């Protein structure tokens, strides 16, 4: 991360930047104005030189013109020409020409304007005489100096001469006779070197200055200093200054020269000569003082800037020192130092800030102390809560572990499904489905385990469960196991959340065994019922059919006794009595048996009966026995119940009869009562008889079972069996409570509504 600038640095930078801006501004102003002044001076100097050179060139050409005009005006020359033009003898002509040329040669040579002269015939342009003999006879009718020279003195700008292969400048003038006839044109080649010297002449101490002339074809007319080969009339120059000059302008320009070097150039159009004069100097040299001045400013400026930086730094420190002290104080505070009081060194804003800081630090220290106390308390709470949480978590884990092992080890199949697919199965479930592992089933559709015909129904029920619109579902179904077999199961399912989804936890019990047991029981009951019916039928048929032969035995025994009364000895009578007695007993047995068997087969449907009335009927039926034994029979209020009236009379009758029969020492006292007990009435018949040993609790209710001999107490041993059968037919029970010697109480129940 970038380190932020300190206040000292910022302030210093701002001060220094300000100083730098000021210095740069002033420096630039000084430099540019100095440079402008220098440029103006240089331009002015160059212009002066150009003006001076222009004047010199003009003077030189004007002098040349004047000079040749003076020669042409010589009467002597005119005479020669007149003679020459009229002479017919070649020898004489030659002689005159030679004399003429001798005169003209006096005007030629070094330090003279002209190098050579020629006289030209004004009509044809033929050279009639020339100081250069090779030129005589040639025609110059198309040359400018000839054409112009016929009218007035003229100097032709430099051109390239074929014969000499050098640049040449030619002056010309008409030669006019006293009678104003154009006799000839006098022309002379100028010493062009003089022009070169005039232009190239340099004054002053400059190194890179130069001057040259350029013609309208952009060709150098005088030799430039910095071109080694001869450039005159050979090399072109197309610099901006030349273009401007040749366009007829004069002025100053800072631009690259023909070498591509920046130069200050004065260009000047010489209208008389139709040439462009260039005077120039390299910018580097011309502006060298300006550069030196620039360096001086830079150095001085640099020094001032350094000075300003030092001052700025000192100033910034005086501002930033108290701030730094404050910062240090804040840092110490930050490191935990609390007994902090920073010295207040001034009364300005920073002093006030320091004071505020001290106040704030004290306040913060106090608050921090309070906070620390709170924090410690909080920490303590956190520790204790954490411990609790840890304990809870351990318990939860343990509970989870228990629950998991409970589920995993459960003998019943348990599985979870969500979105109609298995998501968990315990080992018992895996085994139940006949899978190798839970993975084989997880993700598969639960409906695959059901008969296709049930799919819609199951899906609907599961949906209700998922949506928790049912708290639980229970059903018995057949599962299709993976091997294709089916297994009967009892299913209970409850909705749960599993992995954040609505799911169903399902408990399944294989009820194959239970089903088999139930079926066996059912079959056994059916068998038993059939057997009972057969037995009853047998008993009924037997007792009924036995009565007829018994009546015959009884009747004929009676007839025998009556017919042979008095004729039989004692022994025979005794035998007949035995037979008659046996027949009577048998009759009683058969009657009882018949009655017993009729309970199941001939019973009437139950109806509402007043048990008090029924007790009265039993009383009447037993009137003789009651009278004979002086028995007292009492009763409490008795209810109305739904029952077979005649059978219930039989029960009361048998119980009362037994109570009288097995009376104790005193007269029999029998009390009949009834009480409500839930859904049934409990009747009781209490006596004060001999009582029954506890071990005979079951035996007394078995048919034809007797506890006493017939001699002790007469009877067939069917009475209580009959009672038991009647009570049970009505859905009740019968039992007794007895204290041998002091009486017995028989209890039986009749359901309130059967």
């Amino acid at each position, binding site marked *: 991360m970038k380190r932020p600038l300190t206040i000292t640095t910022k302030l210093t930078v701002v001060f220094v930047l300000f100083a730098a801006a000021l210095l740069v501004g002033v420096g630039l102003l000084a430099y540019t104005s100095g440079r402008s002044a220098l440029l103006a001076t240089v331009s002015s100097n160059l212009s002066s030189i150009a003006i001076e050179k222009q004047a010199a060139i003009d003077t030189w050409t004007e002098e040349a013109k004047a000079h040749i005009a003076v020669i042409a005006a010589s009467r002597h020359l005119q005479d020669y020409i007149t003679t020459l033009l009229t002479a017919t003898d070649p020898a004489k002509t030659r002689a005159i020409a030679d004399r003429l040329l001798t005169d003209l040669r006096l005007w030629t040579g070094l330090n003279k304007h002209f190098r050579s002269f020629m006289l030209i015939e004004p009509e044809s342009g033929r050279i009639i005489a020339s100081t250069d003999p090779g*030129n005589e*006879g040639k*025609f110059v009718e*198309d040359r400018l100096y000839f054409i112009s020279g016929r009218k007035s003195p003229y100097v032709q700008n430099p051109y390239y*001469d*074929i014969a000499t292969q050098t*640049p040449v400048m030619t002056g010309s003038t008409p030669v006019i006779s006293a009678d104003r006839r154009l006799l000839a044109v006098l022309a002379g080649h100028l010493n062009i070197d003089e022009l070169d010297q005039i232009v190239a002449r340099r004054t002053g101490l400059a190194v890179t200055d130069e001057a040259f002339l350029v*013609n309208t074809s952009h060709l150098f007319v005088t030799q430039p200093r910095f071109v080694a080969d001869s*450039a005159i009339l050979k090399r072109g120059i197309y610099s901006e200054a030349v273009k401007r000059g040749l366009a007829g302008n004069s002025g100053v320009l800072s631009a690259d020269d023909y070498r591509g070097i920046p130069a200050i150039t004065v260009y000047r159009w010489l209208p008389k000569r139709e040439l462009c004069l260039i005077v120039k100097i390299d910018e580097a040299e011309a502006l060298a003082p300006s550069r030196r001045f620039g360096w001086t400013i830079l150095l001085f400026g640099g020094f001032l800037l350094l000075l300003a930086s030092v001052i700025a730094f000192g100033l910034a420190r005086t501002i930033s020192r108290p701030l730094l002290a404050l910062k240090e104080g804040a840092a110490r505070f930050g490191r935990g130092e609390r007994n902090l009081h920073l010295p207040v060194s001034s009364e300005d804003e920073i002093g006030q800030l320091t004071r505020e800081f001290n106040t704030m630090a004290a306040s913060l220290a106090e608050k921090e102390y309070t906070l620390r106390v709170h924090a410690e308390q909080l920490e303590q709470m956190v520790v204790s809560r954490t411990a609790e949480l840890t304990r809870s978590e351990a318990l939860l884990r343990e509970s989870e572990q228990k629950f998991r092992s409970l589920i995993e080890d459960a003998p019943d199949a348990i599985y979870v499904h969500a979105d109609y697919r298995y998501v968990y199965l315990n080992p018992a479930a895996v085994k139940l489905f006949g899978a190798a592992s839970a993975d084989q089933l997880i993700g598969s559709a639960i409906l695959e385990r059901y008969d296709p015909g049930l799919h819609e129904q199951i899906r609907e029920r599961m949906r209700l469960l998922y949506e928790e619109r049912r708290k639980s579902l229970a059903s018995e179904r057949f599962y299709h196991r993976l091997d294709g077999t089916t297994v009967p199961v009892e299913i209970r399912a409850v909705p749960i959340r599993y992995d954040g989804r609505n799911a169903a936890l399902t408990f399944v019990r294989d009820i194959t065994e239970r089903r088999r047991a139930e079926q066996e029981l059912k079959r056994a009951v059916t068998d038993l019922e059939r057997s009972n019916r057969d037995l009853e039928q047998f008993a009924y048929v037997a007792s009924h059919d036995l009565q007829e032969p018994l009546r015959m035995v009884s009747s004929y025994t009676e007839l025998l006794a009556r017919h042979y009364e008095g004729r039989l000895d004692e022994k025979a009578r005794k035998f007949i009595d035995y037979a008659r007695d046996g027949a009577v007993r048998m009759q009683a047995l058969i009657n009882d048996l018949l009655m017993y068997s009729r309970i199941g087969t001939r019973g009437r449907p139950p109806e509402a009966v007043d048990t008090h009335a029924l007790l009265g009927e039993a009383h009447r039926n037993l009137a003789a026995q009651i009278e004979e034994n002086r028995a007292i029979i009492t009763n409490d209020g008795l209810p109305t119940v739904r029952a077979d009236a005649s059978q219930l009379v039989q029960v009361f009758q048998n119980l009362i009869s037994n109570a009288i029969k097995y009376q104790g020492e005193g007269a029999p006292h029998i009390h009949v009562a009834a009480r409500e007990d839930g859904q049934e009435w409990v009747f009781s018949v209490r006596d004060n008889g001999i009582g029954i040993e506890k071990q005979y609790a079951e035996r007394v209710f078995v048919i034809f079972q007797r506890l006493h001999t017939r001699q002790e107490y007469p009877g067939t041993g069917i009475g209580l069996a009959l009672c038991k059968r009647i009570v049970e037919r009505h859905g009740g029970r019968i039992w007794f409570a007895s204290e041998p010697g002091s009486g017995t109480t028989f209890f039986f129940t009749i359901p309130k509504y059967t």
Partner: protein
Amino acid sequence: MRAVATLFRRSPTVFFALAGTGITRPQDFAGKKIRAVSDQTLILHAMMARIGIRPDRYTLVSLPSDLKRFASGDVPVWGGYLTSFVLLARQAGHQVNVVYPDDYGVHLYGDTIFATDELIDDNPDLVRRFLRATLKGWTYAVENPAQIGPMVVKYNPEADAALENAEMTASIPLINTGEDHIGWMKPERWTGMEKTLRQQNVLTKPVDVSQVYTMQFLEEIYRTNRK
């Protein structure tokens, strides 16, 4: 068809003789055998006519450019190119006097660039660009004659670099008059040529010289083309 620029503004055709013969002027040709072929004949007749010497006063001979034959002197005056035959003769060590027809009123342009009227009308830019490139090349050659030899050798290894340089140097005054731009043409020169050609019966009837050349391209190029 029109001329668009003239490269040799003075004809390189000259007449020359061994210095020993004393022949320095066309007047000296009278009664002599003169070797002249093709357009040299026309130039010779025009020049001789200018100084008033009729063709029956000199004898024309047609010979190949043979330096040995020139050196033998049996034909004293030879017509040829200043830039080749004269140069060869001088290089062979002969002192040679040269007569320039230009000095005797015969001012003919040499190598001239022409373009058809169709090309000028249909594709003036092509003409302009061709001409500009050509003139740029000649300007360079005039300013740097010593560079020309090696350049020619580069494209023609059999050429003699020194000779090529010499030829270029000799060509400079014909190409660059020092008075105006390279390639520049003058109306009076065209008029003069028409006159000369009619006098020599090359042209049998007057020709409107303004239809023979155009300054259109030169003016454009020298107005805009500043390197």
